[in-house]
């Protein structure tokens, strides 16, 4: 079988996309879960502030989410652009 | 020297069996050791209860061991598999079966050790609630075993379906990817469920009269946290049952393998994270049961957001399978 350069690059890009998204999903997943857990704890202590705390939780999670989104972008670039 | 296909398949079956029973035993041993350690602490706090604590630990361990026994069954089937005349594709199916079962058993084994340990601690604190604590522990550990059931189902499909009519290129990558996808993605939910069940069991020990509400909240949290292993299972099914045309190109095998790795690894984080969320929610419900409805709602919102990276992984996997 003859290995062709372009084919190899494309294959490597696809493998890279999978690994990037897979590993990139671990950190935000745990981090956002932790943020949400702490928010639950705080709301349990102080239920009157539930609205404010939920908003704060969502903002915090959105920021932690960013590395996940970077991974997604990199994966999509590797799939469609390379 | 030419090595025949049969020999390769036989070797792959042995390696797969090693993966299954090795990882399965590691998971079960870590869980059991952890529970035994906490039982020791509990006994040192309250030595007069050592009999009840040891019994509680044993009941928890017996259930926690199920994932290991699943792995053992799969490993024995692999060892005794008759490989004569099997195509080379079976080698990858057996490797995938071993990975899927073994990795899935790690999370479940470690995870279900946690409620067992918590129950020992709880019995030492609140011996009057012995029966309620044990019930919650059993429910929690039994649910922790579910991710390993998904791993076992995939392993059985890889073992018993005849793949010989598929083209070797690129089906081998799909078979391996299917095993990796469910195997890795089961680790997260297994551990996460253990973290939640741990807090729920401690909570029941703190306030036995709220055990009904607590067990319900715990079950909601556990069910949502299991969604990533279901994604992993879905990707495995797609990889196994949607055949791809024969192709020698590297892209053709890189895409399914990558899809499996992507969904597998991507399932770990959200599984653990959602478990942590549910653990904190359950802990607060145990302190103030009136807050149950509000906390369940916040927990579900938080879990849904943590889920997003798992969904990204699913999307990327599906793109890799269908678009490339």
């Amino acid at each position, binding site marked *: 079988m003859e290995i062709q350069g372009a084919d190899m690059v494309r294959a490597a890009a696809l493998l890279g996309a999978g690994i990037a998204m897979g590993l990139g999903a671990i950190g935000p997943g745990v981090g956002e879960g932790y943020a949400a857990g702490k928010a639950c704890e705080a709301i349990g202590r102080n239920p009157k502030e539930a609205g404010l705390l939920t908003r704060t939780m969502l903002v915090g999670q959105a920021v932690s989410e960013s590395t996940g989104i970077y991974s997604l972008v990199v994966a999509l670039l590797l799939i469609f652009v390379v | 020297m030419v090595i025949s296909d049969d020999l390769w398949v036989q070797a792959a079956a042995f390696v797969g069996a090693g993966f299954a029973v090795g990882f399965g035993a590691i998971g079960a041993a870590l869980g059991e050791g952890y529970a*035994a*350690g906490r*039982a*020791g602490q509990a006994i040192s706090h309250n030595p007069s209860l050592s009999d009840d604590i040891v019994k509680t630990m044993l009941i928890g361990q017996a259930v926690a061991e199920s994932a290991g*026994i699943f792995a053992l069954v799969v*490993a024995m089937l692999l060892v005794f598999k008759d490989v004569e005349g099997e195509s080379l594709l079976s080698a990858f199916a057996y490797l995938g079966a071993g990975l899927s079962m073994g990795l899935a058993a790690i999370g479940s084994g470690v995870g279900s050790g946690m409620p067992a340990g918590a129950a020992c601690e709880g019995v030492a604190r609140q011996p009057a609630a012995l029966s309620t604590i044990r019930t919650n522990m059993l429910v929690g550990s039994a649910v922790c075993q579910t991710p390993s059931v998904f791993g076992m189902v995939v392993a059985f499909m890889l073992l018993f379906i005849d793949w010989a009519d598929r083209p070797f290129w690129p089906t081998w990558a799909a078979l391996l990817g299917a095993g990796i996808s469910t195997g890795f993605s089961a680790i997260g939910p297994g551990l996460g469920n253990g973290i939640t069940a741990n807090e729920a069991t401690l909570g029941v020990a703190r306030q036995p009269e709220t055990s009904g509400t607590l067990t319900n909240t715990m079950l909601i949290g556990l069910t949502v946290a299991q969604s990533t292993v279901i994604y992993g299972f879905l990707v495995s099914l797609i990889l196994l049952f949607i055949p791809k045309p024969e192709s020698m190109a590297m892209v053709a095998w890189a895409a399914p393998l990558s899809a499996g790795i992507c969904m597998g690894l991507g399932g770990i984080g959200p599984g653990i994270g959602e478990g942590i969320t549910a653990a904190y929610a359950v802990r607060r419900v145990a302190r103030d049961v009136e807050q149950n409805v509000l906390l369940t709602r916040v927990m579900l919102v938080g879990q849904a957001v943590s889920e997003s990276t798992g969904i990204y992984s699913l999307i990327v996997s599906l793109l890799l399978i269908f678009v490339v």
Partner: protein
Amino acid sequence: MESVAKRALALTLAACLILAVMGRLAWAKGLALGGLVSVVNFALMAWLLPKAVGMSRRRSEGWAFGSLALRFSLMALALGLCLYKPQSLSVAACAAGLFVVQLTLLTDRFLPERWREATWGVNERWKT
């Protein structure tokens, strides 16, 4: 603990008898073997694992691994026997039999109170 083992054995025996009456002798024998090994495994665990209590974390994990290796090889032996003679011993039934103790523990909750008290160890001392 003894009554859990007894109930698991009774459950196995009943299931075996039903299977034998139905004429599935290989299933009955496989199930009997699996159930027996499951109970022996539980008894071994009840004997070995309490010794790990009070050890340090690392040592208790090592001990658990050792006991697990012993008990798993026992179960592997039973499964291996079935796979070696699949005509007279059903592998699937043996695998199902290995979970008899777990089944007993998980279904215990649904039994009448009067039976449960003995096995579940609802401690009379602490009843209010």
